[in-house]
């Protein structure tokens, strides 16, 4: 059984992820003059059209290409010794310490703790009437699912077919789609957790929500 508390403790012990920026190809490196401890940001804008902070330039065959920070964080290390030198592909250049955000931590925990039942094709999904009724009356944590249980109706181009649940048995922890939404293939439909872990997960998520500081 998964020990969620332990997982949370490990996350707390190192609440960040290290992102190492490698040279994508050979070339001469010119760093953008960032120092250890400086903040960088990732892509931004409504369409992610604005690139992140410039980290370095890599020049190969007179083609000077910029390297941008992929996510926000703090500069952990810059390989200043490589400034102006030719590097091979894959050479680590910059290390960024990316602090996990609240959402990322919750996702991490849920990913480990929940089983995600995914959409087999792009369609609209509905729960079968009995399940739907139960979900409405007593909330989503009240429905137990098991392998082979007829759980949903797949509606595509006005053609409806039943869909059986497959995966470990448990309780529906979260529902990821809305009524009448088109769900793409491979997107999660529901998250299922083992019955005995429900309270633990709820506790942990609530604690992360209230205590995690990194937005």
């Amino acid at each position: 059984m998964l020990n969620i508390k332990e997982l949370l403790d490990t996350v707390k012990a190192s609440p960040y992820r290290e992102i190492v920026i490698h040279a994508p190809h050979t070339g001469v490196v010119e760093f953008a003059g960032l120092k250890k401890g400086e903040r960088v940001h990732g892509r931004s804008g409504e369409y992610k059209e604005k690139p992140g902070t410039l980290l370095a330039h890599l020049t190969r065959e007179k083609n000077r290409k910029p390297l941008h920070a992929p996510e926000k964080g703090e500069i952990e290390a810059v390989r200043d010794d490589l400034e102006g030198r030719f590097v091979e592909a894959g050479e680590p250049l910059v290390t960024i310490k990316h602090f996990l955000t609240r959402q990322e931590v919750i996702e991490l925990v849920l990913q480990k703790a929940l089983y995600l039942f995914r959409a087999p094709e792009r369609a609209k999904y509905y729960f079968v009437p009995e399940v739907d009724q139960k979900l409405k009356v007593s909330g989503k944590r009240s429905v137990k699912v098991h392998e082979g249980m007829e759980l949903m109706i797949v509606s595509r181009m006005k053609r409806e077919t039943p869909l059986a649940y497959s995966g470990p048995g448990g309780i529906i922890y979260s529902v990821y789609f809305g009524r009448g939404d088109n769900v793409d293939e491979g997107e999660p439909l529901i998250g299922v957790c083992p019955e005995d872990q429900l309270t633990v997960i709820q506790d942990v998520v609530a604690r992360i929500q209230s205590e995690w500081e990194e937005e």
Partner: protein
Amino acid sequence: MDTERRIQDIKDRLSYIRDIFGGKEGDHIRLLTAKLGEVLGREAANPGSVQGEELSRLEDLFDFSERKLDTLLTPMDRVRIVRHPQRMCLKDILENVYDNYTEIGGRGEFNIDPSMLIARAYFARRVGERVINQMIMVIGQEKGHGEAFRNGGSVKPWGNAKALHYMKVAETENIPVHTFVFTPGAYPIEDWPGAAQQIARNLYEMAALKAPVISVFSEGGSGGAEAVGLADRRIMPSHGYYSVISPEGAAAIEGGLRGETRATPELIEKCARQLRITAQDNLRNGYVDRVLQEPPLGARSTHYEFFRELRRELIQATNEAVSEVKSMKLFRAMAVRASMADDAEAIFMRWTLSASALRRLVELRQRKYRAMSRHACLDGTGFFKRIATSARGAVWDAHSFLRYDLLGRQKKRLDSMFEELGAEAHLVRRKLLLPLKRAMDTILPVGNGEQQKKGDEVRDRLTRLSCPEDGACLVGSEWAWISPRSQEDRTMSCPNVRTHHCPDLWVPDLFGDFAGVCPSCGHHFPMEYQWYINNVFNFDPAREFNQRLESMNPLNYEQFDSKLDQAKEKTGLKSACITFETAINGVETVVAVFCAPFRGGSVGAAEGEKFIRAAERAARKRQPFIAYVHGTAGIRIQEGVNGVIQMPRCTIAVRRYIDAGGLYLVLYDTNSYAGPVASFLGCSPYQFAVQSANIGFAGPGVIAETTGMTVSPDYHSAYHALSRGHIHGIWDRREVKKNLHQSLLTMGGRNLYYR
């Protein structure tokens, strides 16, 4: 009660003056404020103490000051006047100018586009004992005294579509159209029917609309104004403006500003002055027919005297337009000409026109626009050459008439008769001979081994995948012209590298054999226009014409002379448009190219004139007409209205050409925006784009500023334009020539004698 109302009225007048002049003319404003404050103070201390006489004196003082201030107005003050919420709007005009009206298609904000107002109205005219109602279709932008949902008179594409619909209705009903232009510009969104494409459609239809059109320009902001502004008579109130771009927009371009930084008021003021946007400027240039004097500091809702004048002017203008083409007019035409100033109402003229009169009306309208803006470009062609050209034109006309109309038509008729006869004979022969042949075959079977062998050969040729025995296909470059950029020994990255993981490209390959196309994702790097004119249009043997038609600086815009000289020197061209006759795989065509390197491919008077002459030449010679847009940034703002008038002018030329039976094809490349797309390019029924081109009305910056929406970076991409229905196909650069030839063989026009 009356005193209160009068005081309120004076207060409004003061706040209006403050709004118009801002920080300027402080002395006048201080004096007026002090006088009003004095009266207000007394009224507050002792209600009822202020007498009517005193108020009259104060009103007189305001009248005097307004007259005085009116003489000091700068162009930018006039812009502020037309934008002021107290400015008269279309609803006021409908109420006060016409005798009755019914609004069509909307009540307040419940309207497909509240900023475009349509109404059926009439003038009640007394003729002897009878009263006759003269019907009119009124179309115009409504600013609604600053109502938010009216969007400041900035019309969405579907609003312009509605306007077009009702122009067609007026055409069907044979009644005149009065259009009122109250717009700072069109709302720049690309959703169907598309800002640019709808304006183009409007212009195209108005170019030959069979109804008299009279337009009144109060606020004429570029493309939005043109959408309803192509008229037989254009009247302009004296405080209005008509411009290629808002002074703020011009200042932002002039100052090279982007994003959040705003132009300084001084720069905006300067641009407004230089753009020559006022009524008098436009009258002098010949872009409006008459200026209607407004009361001091502009007409507001309560200036009833002005509305009476406007009514008289509208009747006069409609009478003029109608009397020019009507067959039965006698003295009235003379009277109409004579009554410029006084009694237009006395002359009654039926405004319904016969079919032939409507044809004359359209012809006159088209000629009127053809004659405009000729002073705004330089024609360096020598005297003798001009005579030779016009003589040659006459010869072509005669030749086309003889060859295609007189003889060609008879020949076609004969040909089709022979074709029919031949087909009949073929059928009869087949019916008679086939049974005979079958019988012979059964009696004397022929060894068909040879036939079998031939069939095998054909199958082999069709199914063989490659020919390794021929060796690698190492032939020289297939391009007649290769970009000088291919001489550089370096690599380049494709902009799609993040999504498509394209490998770096070696520049000599990319700009040489690959013709600037990324072999991995198909991204088209911008190419020089020379690549197209040499590789697609065979420029070397082609005959260029009107080479000496030259762009100039008609408004004496500051520093523009030197910029123009730089452009001429850099590109070796005299304007952004190259026109020539060429053959594409044997099909003779006339081509107009808009080159991006010359001032961004912007269209001014010279470019417009060249384009029109090319269209006329194509019509004369009965050849297809191709517009290749290497890139255009829009109308050249430094030429002011001389530039923007090219929109209707060129669209009329296109309309005449298409109506005469021609095939007009447009091919977009790199970036094509604004005015030209919203007129003579966007009106083509066959528009194609080279892959990776961007097509649109306004750029992302302008969209963000005017609508508050940020658009995705690929908002204007050719694929989006295709899915929105603005263009009709996307071509690979390497296949442009093949596709052009195929289009010439498969697409429209009655004059396609080469097929």
